[in-house]
C-alpha cells in the first residue's frame, strides 16, 4: 500500500523546510532526499514540489537564488530557509506531535 497524497499534503512544507534547514538546496536534490529518507516510500511529484516552493516563497518561508552545484557546476535555482520559515517549521512540528497523539488514540 502506498502513501496517500491527501494525508501527506499538509506536511509537504514541513518535509521541505526540514531539508532546507540543513542546507540550501534545489528541486531535484530535495525530491531525491525525500525519496531516500523515506526509504523510497514517498516520492514527491514535480508539480507538488514546485507548487510548495512557489507558495512558501510567497509566504516568506523560503528565498530563492541562482546557484551552482559545486560538484558538477550546473546552474540551478536554489532555495534557502528564512527565519519566518524556521518559526513556521517549529509550529508545524508541534502541530504534528499533537495530531499524532490524537490520531494514535484511535489506531488499533
Amino acid at each position, binding site marked *: 500500500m502506498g502513501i496517500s497524497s491527501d494525508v501527506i499534503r499538509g506536511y509537504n512544507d514541513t518535509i521541505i523546510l526540514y531539508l532546507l534547514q540543513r542546507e540550501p538546496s534545489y*528541486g531535484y*536534490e530535495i*525530491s531525491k532526499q525525500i525519496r531516500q529518507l523515506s526509504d523510497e516510500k514517498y516520492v514527491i*511529484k*514535480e*508539480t507538488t*514540489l514546485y507548487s510548495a516552493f512557489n507558495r512558501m516563497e510567497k509566504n516568506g518561508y523560503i528565498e530563492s537564488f541562482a546557484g551552482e552545484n559545486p560538484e558538477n557546476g550546473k546552474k540551478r535555482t536554489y532555495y534557502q530557509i528564512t527565519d519566518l520559515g524556521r518559526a513556521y517549521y517549529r509550529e508545524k512540528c508541534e502541530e504534528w506531535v499533537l495530531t499524532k497523539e490524537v490520531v494514535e488514540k484511535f489506531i488499533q
Partner: protein
Amino acid sequence: METIKIYLENMFMNLPNTPEVYKAKQELLQMMEDKYQELKSEGKTENEAIGIVISEFGNLDEIAKDLGIETCVEHAVPEGKKLSLEEAKEYIQDMGHAATGIALGVMFLIISFVGPIVADAFADAGMKEELTDMVGAVSLFLMWALGIGIIIYTNIKKSKWDKMQHENYVTEFSTTEYIQRQWEVYKQSYATTKTLGVVLCIISFIPAIVLDAVHSTYITDSMGGAGLFLFVGVGVFLLISSESRKGSYMRLLGLNDPKSVGGKYTVDQKKNHQPKNPVLRAILSVYWPTVTCIYLIYSFLTFNWHISWIIFVIAGVIQMFLNNLEGEES
C-alpha cells in the same frame, strides 16, 4: 530527453505566456532533466527513465492556482488551434511574398501616371498628339491592370491565412523564440528599407526643382512630375513591403501575449479599435483615398507639385485629431 521536453511543451501549450508560467516551466524541466540524468546514470534505459520521469511529474492543476491560471487550465484553447513551427515559418514566408505583391501593385498604380505625363511632354515638344495620347492612355491602363491584377492575385493567395484573423491560435515557446530571432535578424533591413522609403517620398519633388532650375522646357517640366511619381512609387513600395512584413512578425509574436492571461486571447486584442460614431467611422474609412484624390487633383490642376505634398502632412494631423475626437476603445 526530447520526449520529456515535448511532453512538457504539450502540458503547457495552452497556457498564456506569462513570466510565472515561463518560470514554472523552466523549473519543472530542470527537475525532470536532473531526474532523467540520474536514472540514466543508474543504468536505466532511455524508455524506462522517460517513463518514470513522466509518471512522477504530477498534475498541472496543482500549480494552476499558484500561477493564477486556473481559468486557463479549464478553458484552454480548443484542440487543433496550435500553430506549429512549420506553419509559422510558412506564414512568415507567405506574408513576405504578399507584402511584396501588394507593395508592387500599389507602386504600379502610382507610377501609372508617368506614362501620360511623359507622352504629354512629347506632344508639347511637337510630336503627333494622336500618337502620344494613345501611348499615354495605353500605358496608364496597362499599369492599372497590372497593379490591380497583382493586388487581387496576392489577396487571393494570402486568403488561406485569413483564419489567423478570426480564430484563436497559440504557439509553443520554442516557436515564439524562433520567430523572435528571425525578427531580430530582419529588424535591421526593416529599418533601412523603411527609412529609404520615407526619404524617397520626402525628396520626391527634388527632380522637379532641379530640372526647373537647370533648364526649363516642356520636357523638363513634365519630367519633374514624372520623377515625382517614380520616387513616390518606389518609396511607397519600400514602405508597404517593409511595414506589412513587420506586421506578420508582430502578429505571430502577439499570439501568446502576456496580456492574454485568463482566457483573453488574440481575438480580443485584435478587435479593431474603431470609433463608435458611425459618421466618424464612415469618414475615416474613406479618409486616405479621398486625401490622395484631393492631392492628385490639386497637383494636376495647378502643377504645384513642389508644395502640394504638404496636403499629406496636414491630412496626417487631421487624422490624429479625428482619432482622438472619440476614444478609440470600442
